[in-house]
């Protein structure tokens, strides 16, 4: 306790890297609470992060984000790959309290050291994540998890922040999410690297997927615009039934393909752009 924050931070960060789950959990709390220890630890851990595949999972409430994340964990573990989760649920704007219920769907891994699940309250941050979620993901990345899944709060149409945090962004839709006009609205679907129509066993799932495939066509690339501007994406559309695992192996293959193909999200330039966006967001928050 009497130690300087630098020393405490170093000890916690090194223990977390060495596999001490308690130290990792403590460190994540420090990050959430923005303590001096967190600042020092992040300075040490950020350069060690970058090996993990950061996968964002977003979509409307009840579309099945937590169930999909749980199904992905199962598939990753089947293949011997490690996984960490940062699952965000909203904080009450009235009391500041929160009900964090994402773990309910992710219970099977109590004795498995290859899985680490952490719930976070959004604490008033509006973009779909907590303001400290990306830092938490970096800590889990530096702690050696091969895949870090970032699950947002249930989102509407415009909470696109997760795309700035993740290498690959998965947008979930439930069947009957709307007509083609919904699919061509600006916002969430524009930042998707993969679109998943979950609850594939419900009527209308295949039709919804077909409508999305038809409408999510990129606009024609133009040579006269700033090449640094993000290029329009053409996300693959998959159908899953997360509760049974149907379509999950295919989803993981698509995630891996997006990453190894150096797809939009995974290139160094894209990572650098995301880092810049994160720094800007931090500055706005601290100065704003």
């Amino acid at each position: 306790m009497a130690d300087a924050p630098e020393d405490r931070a170093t000890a916690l960060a090194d223990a977390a890297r060495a596999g001490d789950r308690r130290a990792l959990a403590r460190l994540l709390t420090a990050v959430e609470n923005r303590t001096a220890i967190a600042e020092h630890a992040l300075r040490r851990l950020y350069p060690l992060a970058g090996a993990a595949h950061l996968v964002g999972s977003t979509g409307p409430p009840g579309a099945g984000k937590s169930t999909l994340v749980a199904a992905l964990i199962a598939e990753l573990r089947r293949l011997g790959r490690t996984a960490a989760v940062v699952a965000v649920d909203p904080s009450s704007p009235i009391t500041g309290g929160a009900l964090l219920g994402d773990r309910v769907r992710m219970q099977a891994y109590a004795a498995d050291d290859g899985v680490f699940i952490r719930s976070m309250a959004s604490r008033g941050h509006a973009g779909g994540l907590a303001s400290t979620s990306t830092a938490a993901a970096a800590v889990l990345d530096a702690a050696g998890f091969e895949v870090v899944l970032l699950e947002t709060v249930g989102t509407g149409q415009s909470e696109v922040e997760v795309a700035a945090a993740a290498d690959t962004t998965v947008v979930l839709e439930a069947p009957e999410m709307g007509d083609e006009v919904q699919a061509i609205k600006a916002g969430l679907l524009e930042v998707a690297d993969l679109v998943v129509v979950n609850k594939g066993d419900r009527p209308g799932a295949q039709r919804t997927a077909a409508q999305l495939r038809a409408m999510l066509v990129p606009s024609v690339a133009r040579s006269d615009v700033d090449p640094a501007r993000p290029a329009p994406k053409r996300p693959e559309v998959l159908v899953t039934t997360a509760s049974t695992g149907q379509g999950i192996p295919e989803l993981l293959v698509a995630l891996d393909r997006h990453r190894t193909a150096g797809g939009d999200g995974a290139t160094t330039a894209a990572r650098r752009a995301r880092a810049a966006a994160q720094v800007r967001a931090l500055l706005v928050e601290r100065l704003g």
Partner: protein
Amino acid sequence: MTDRPLKVLIAKPGLDGHDRGAKVLARGLRDEGFEVVYTGLRQTPDMIVTAALQEDVDVVGLSILSGAHMTLVPKVCAQLMDRGLDDVLVTVGGIIPDDDVPALREAGVAQVFGPGTTIREVADFIRANAKPRE
């Protein structure tokens, strides 16, 4: 750091399917300004302690109506100790005979809340007794 919300895990150990009380408490503590992690039904002590560790909670609240509290609660307490979570406040709610309360306290339970307890009593107890973290 007193302004950060306290984090509470509400868990139902064992084979007891009655989670209305746990859900009402989880919701009530949310309204009292706590960050509440709810993990659902039929948890083993191992699952509960893993969740407490990964979430780094300040409080573990166990809800039991099945009568198995003398088996399950000491196991949870012992595992919390084993895994270094000795600063976590443990409370129990449900149908707990008075005669069992001393043994549960001996096992490491800070307080037992029976039927008729108000949300406010639980919230006040947690605020007064959760050990401050940095």
